[in-house]
């Protein structure tokens, strides 16, 4: 026994050649994959601050050349981009706040045993996660409710999120019941208990769902693509970026067919501009990212607990 212990201690102190090889390979693979994940953002960025002519020729690859910030000034001149930015910010802020408040309240309500038909309504809500009418019925429904070409289409359908409600419910169930009981003996109503006790205590989980909700709102573009066809002013930033990228695909396709020098020129100058728009859509995510990372694990682990 003592021998074995000694052996493991020795093992810990001095790495065997096998361990060293393993570590070298392991570290290399992970550092390489991290580089693959990070490099594209860096690449986009250096292409937005480098000389546009060089960017158009695809020369900029590892470091910036001919530094300038004109692109960031120039995109403000693109018609409609500012509006799209405001729409995206507005839907993210309003949509996330309403979703979080609703999830908190509903998550609390479904923990109350005495609610009329609680079990039924909870299942009624949760089961919607598992089916989907499909894109056309969804579109027809939105159009019937007057939510096409309407800003509310970004907000109202997203208020209820069964998955987030389950997360909040699971969290609230872990809060000691005594707190609530003493408050209700003092004559506090359900809403007062929710506002004064449950809501403040659920802040960690609410922060988690707020992050996921906000990222979802910021990134979503199919709703804009499908519902806002008649009003370009309501299209989101992601939708704009998609449109710009799509135009370039068409241009490139045309180029591979014919050999129009002017088209080539036009497509080259569009390249840095597109990347700049892309940077503008990704920068908000990168800014909030450090603050969100600490909530990831909590959220995803709670998510593993089923409703």
């Amino acid at each position, binding site marked *: 026994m003592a021998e*074995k*212990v000694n052996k493991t201690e020795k093992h810990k102190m001095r790495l065997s050649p096998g361990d060293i090889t393993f570590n070298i390979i392991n570290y290399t693979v*992970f*550092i390489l*994959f*991290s580089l693959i*994940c990070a490099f594209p953002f860096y*690449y*986009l960025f250096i292409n937005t601050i480098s000389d546009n002519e060089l960017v*158009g*020729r*695809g020369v900029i690859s590892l470091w910036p050349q001919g530094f300038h910030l004109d692109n960031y000034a120039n995109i403000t001149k693109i018609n409609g981009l500012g509006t799209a930015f405001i729409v995206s910010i507005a839907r993210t802020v309003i949509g996330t706040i309403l979703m979080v408040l609703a999830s908190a309240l*509903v998550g609390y*309500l479904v923990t109350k045993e*005495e*609610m*009329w*038909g609680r079990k039924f*309504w909870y299942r*009624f*809500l949760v089961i*919607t996660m*598992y089916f989907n*009418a*499909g*894109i*056309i*019925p*969804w579109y*027809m*429904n939105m*159009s*019937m*409710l*007057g939510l096409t070409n309407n800003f509310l289409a970004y907000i*109202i*359908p997203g208020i*209820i999120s069964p998955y987030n409600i389950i997360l909040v419910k699971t969290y609230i169930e872990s809060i000691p019941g005594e707190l609530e009981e003493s408050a*209700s*003996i003092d004559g506090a109503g*359900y*809403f007062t208990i929710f506002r004064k006790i449950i809501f403040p205590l659920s802040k960690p989980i609410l922060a988690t769902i707020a992050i996921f909700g906000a990222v979802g709102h910021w*990134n979503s*573009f199919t709703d804009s693509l499908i519902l806002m066809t008649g009003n370009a002013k309501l299209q989101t930033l992601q939708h704009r*970026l*998609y449109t710009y*990228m799509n135009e370039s695909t068409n241009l*490139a*396709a045309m180029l*591979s067919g014919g050999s129009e020098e002017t088209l080539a020129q036009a497509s080259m100058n569009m390249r840095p501009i*597109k990347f700049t728009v*892309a940077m503008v*859509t990704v920068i908000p*995510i990168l800014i909030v*990212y450090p603050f969100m*990372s600490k909530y*990831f694990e909590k959220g*995803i682990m709670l998510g*593993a607990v*089923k409703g």
Partner: protein
Amino acid sequence: MTAAKSPGLKSKPAKTTVDLIGYVLRITIVLTMICLFVPALNPTRMSELIKESDSFFTSGISYGGLTEGFTRAFNKGYIESGVLVRTYIGSITALIGSLVMLAGCAMTLGEIKFKRLGAKVAIAGSGIAVLGAVFIKLQQTGFNNAANPERIKPLTPVGGFAFIAFYGVCLLLSIAYLLKLPQAGKDDKYVMEGKFRLFLMMSPFIVLVVLFSYLPLWGWRYAFYDYTPGQALTSDNFVGFKWFAYLFQNSAMRADVGRVIVNTLAVSGIGLAMSWLPLAFAIFLNEVKNSHVKRVVQTITTIPNFISWVLVYTVAFALFSSDGFMNHILMNLNFTSEPINFLQSNSGIWFKMWLWNTWKGLGWGAIIYIAGISGIDQALYEAATIDGAGRFQRMWHITIPGLMPTFFVQLVLSISNILSNGMDQYLVFKNAFNQSKIEVLDLYTYTLGLGTGGSIPLSTAVGMAKSLISVILLFSANKASKAIRGQSIV
């Protein structure tokens, strides 16, 4: 709750006629509210220029929506715009009345004082709504006597009388209810049992769920009609299972659907076959003993999960288009003299899609396993080390079995999602060159329904079949999970 107990509760009377009227009243009001969303009952549709697919609710909330088809009619003076303004005023009045009525309906769930107040509010609400509905009906003459009836094409909607009747019944019922209700005692207060208060707090959210999750299912009926946008669904264009049969009988269609299903299954299949990758990522990351490196790797590899597919495509474009990073490197190293446009090629597109999926999701997918590893008892590792187990033996005999339940749940979920790849990724990467191989079911239903020359009934049929199969898959997977591991996932 104790504080809410009222004197009235102590001697709860048996069910009486009053209660019965109460039930009927509440049900009638809720049904009337539902009818607001039925396009066939739209009382404002007094001209063919108003879309058949619009419900009373749609017409009532926006004047722009109501008059969408009238731009030309107003310009040419076919009809006075005043008629439509009055119709709109009537609709707004009826909708407001409906809301008041609904509020009254909610109050009748309380004790006696609330019941009496609720009945009064319901009388007021249904009264207003009746006036609104009658006012709409009065505009019928305006439509019939329009300057150019041939262009306006006046109609007499069923809903015109139906809504007057609905609101009328609500009015009568609430009057009867108020008359039958006993007078409130002196010490009675405005109280409501906790169970109903909770339900009322919940009800707005139930309405939202109905509107956005259940109501779309009603749209499945389009799969059974020969529908073109703007038309109504009537018995004339009912075609039964024609579109479902068409999917199999029309050879071009059959080939198309077959191709799309092959694409879908291929993309999902590669994903399933490689679903152990996040698990391996987590296990090997756990072997990185330097906590700073570990933290940084985890942080950086998670970032791509938080960017949209449009941005992923932008990244792909930046790196792999003919002017992109990859071609620059390849040409500098003299591997190729002509730029290769990697994005405009059909070759290995399924695998490329998997690669992008992995780039975006690997670090994120590993988090659940990383958290799982930290939950494994460290004593197990120590004991194994003492017994002489090497690194790989510990991974194989301790870590992997410890993560198996999580892995299994993820696997079952991805099996049930085998037909749902989402459409964002494939939509952004799609172009004329790779279209035939990249179209998965979700993308196909979108282009089939909303693309140029699309067919809404056909797309609905495809989507409906997909949804049904997905639900069946999910429940079978759940059953299998129960049988194999004694644990359900849904």
